[in-house]
């Protein structure tokens, strides 16, 4: 798989997930296949569609680049959970680790860099990334994700079945944009990779299941009334009463 990294790494993410994708002209249905390149414009093989020069036009009908539509990349990406992006991401973090994180005191040398349980989500992919210095929930863009409005450091809220989570929009050198929600950093408490991996899997499982019940304010109840009434505040109907079809709170309960 290493040759794919080489192809994916130098480009931005938008290019990264188009790298293998074929693009079809919306006018004449000509297909640009990066594996083949394009003889008319003298484009070599392995040039992603996104990396084509701006003056490039459809070799068959002269339509602009913007007329082209993704042919098979979307399906492919959904099926694999963006597996290639994930590999590119891991490779980028491995480089960060080797080049810049070795002298960080709380780097947990027992951990390695790994992507756990990435799966298709909202057109992109979602999973947990473990590194020796953090464990994050990471959301990667899909081919149709539009992140042009987001800047580095923006907080973005995403809704998962288990609740709402704030992700931070970032730009990883050698990879491109990604959004991550910190689960843990530093990760010095993990004794080995297996512990981190199992925890990450469990995190993903919990993230994607819906919690039951309606939210209640948490915390210990205070005694505020001189004679505390056993029922809820006047006019309020308890959940149980509501489900039984009672309209007004009954004081004797």
């Amino acid at each position, binding site marked *: 798989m290493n040759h794919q990294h080489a192809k994916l790494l130098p480009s931005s993410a938008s290019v990264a997930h188009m790298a293998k994708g074929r693009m079809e002209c919306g006018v004449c249905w000509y297909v640009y296949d990066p594996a083949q390149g394009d003889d008319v414009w003298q484009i070599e093989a392995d040039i992603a569609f996104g990396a084509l020069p701006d003056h490039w036009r459809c070799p068959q009908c002269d339509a602009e680049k913007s007329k082209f539509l993704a042919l098979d990349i979307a399906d492919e990406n959904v099926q694999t959970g963006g597996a290639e992006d994930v590999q590119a991401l891991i490779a980028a973090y491995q480089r960060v680790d080797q080049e810049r994180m070795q002298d960080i*005191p709380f780097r947990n040398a027992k951990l390695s860099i790994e992507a756990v349980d990435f799966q298709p989500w909202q057109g992109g992919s979602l999973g947990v990334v473990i590194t020796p210095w953090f464990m994050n929930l990471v959301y990667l863009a899909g081919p149709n994700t539009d992140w042009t409005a987001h800047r580095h450091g923006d907080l973005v809220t995403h809704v998962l079945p288990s609740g709402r989570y704030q992700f931070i929009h970032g730009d990883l050198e050698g990879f491109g944009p990604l959004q991550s*929600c910190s689960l843990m950093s530093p990760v010095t408490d993990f004794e080995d990779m297996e512990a981190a991996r199992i925890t990450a899997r469990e995190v993903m499982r919990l993230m994607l299941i819906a919690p039951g019940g309606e939210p209640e304010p948490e915390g210990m109840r205070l005694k505020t009334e001189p004679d505390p009434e056993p029922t809820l505040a006047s006019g309020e109907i308890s959940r149980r009463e509501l489900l039984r079809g009672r309209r007004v709170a009954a004081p004797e309960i």
Partner: protein
Amino acid sequence: MGETTETFYDVIRRQGISRRSFMKFCSLTAASLGLGPAFAAKIANAMETKPRIPVLWLHGLECTCCSESFIRSAHPLVKDVVLSMISLDYDDTIMAAAGHQAEAILEEVKTQYKGRYILAVEGNPPLKDGGVYCMPGGTPFVDKLKYMAEDAQAIISWGSCASWGCVQAAKPNPTEATPVHKVIKDKPIIKVPGCPPIAEVMTGVLTYILTFERMPDLDRQGRPKMFYSQRIHDKCYRRPHFDAGQFVEAWDDDNARKGYCLYKMGCKGPTTYNACSTTRWNEGVSFPIQSGHGCIGCSEDGFWDNGSFYDRVTDIKQFGIESTADKVGVAAATTVGAAVAAHAALSLVKRAQQKGSQSDEN
């Protein structure tokens, strides 16, 4: 001081605040507490029906930065709403009354609202030489604190002074300044540390207590989880730079201009539990890291004695002794047990979860 039966809503309406503004206040409050929109109605209901709970605000050894922060709260707005809502009956810094007239209020509330009022404490009592190093109204503060705490139903420790001791308790602590929870041991105490705490956190804690008549959910150190369950580092907008290993190496280097991570410049974000990176300061405008300086960890225990502001954080026992916002128990996962991992994962998920806020920013 108001009638016993007067509700928050009565007071607000009497002050000429419209119903519309009141409802807006309720939804803003729900959002600032990290509660969902459903809670806005609950807050409104509580404020319309529940009698006001008096709050007494005592000042010990302190610098008044907590009060200064508090009166600048934007949501809820202290000026218009909170002061009437919380019925701040006594606060020797901002009250109009003075002298014996002021001190009489303490006595009045203590008897009239016995067992029901909230005691908010800013600063801490010095214990040395019988407490003579802090003498408000001519009596040692420690005596006043104990006396007023007798009939309070809960105590709020404002700021790092009341919560941990702060600068006056820094070594060698000449006046034996002592945090509130080491003096009062028989009352529930909510610690709201920070030097000062964020204004919206202070008003948020009060609003929560008074509208829901509950103590907020506290962590093992007695801090409200809704504001203190995440480290600055977890939600810092510079976090992607940390993840990518991009650090400021000197104050005037190019990386500083690019806004890289300040960890190597001594930022205490990775060990500090507070809401600065999400709630931010001055109505959400900025916070220290955003203005280019690392976090000094002012809401952590003993931060004055933890070395220089510019020393790198090296020893992080996040689930050990030092930080106990949530017991995660990963430390016990030496031998991998699925149950331990499951417990750890659940804690991580709960901590990462945003509680209901609607907004996409801040």
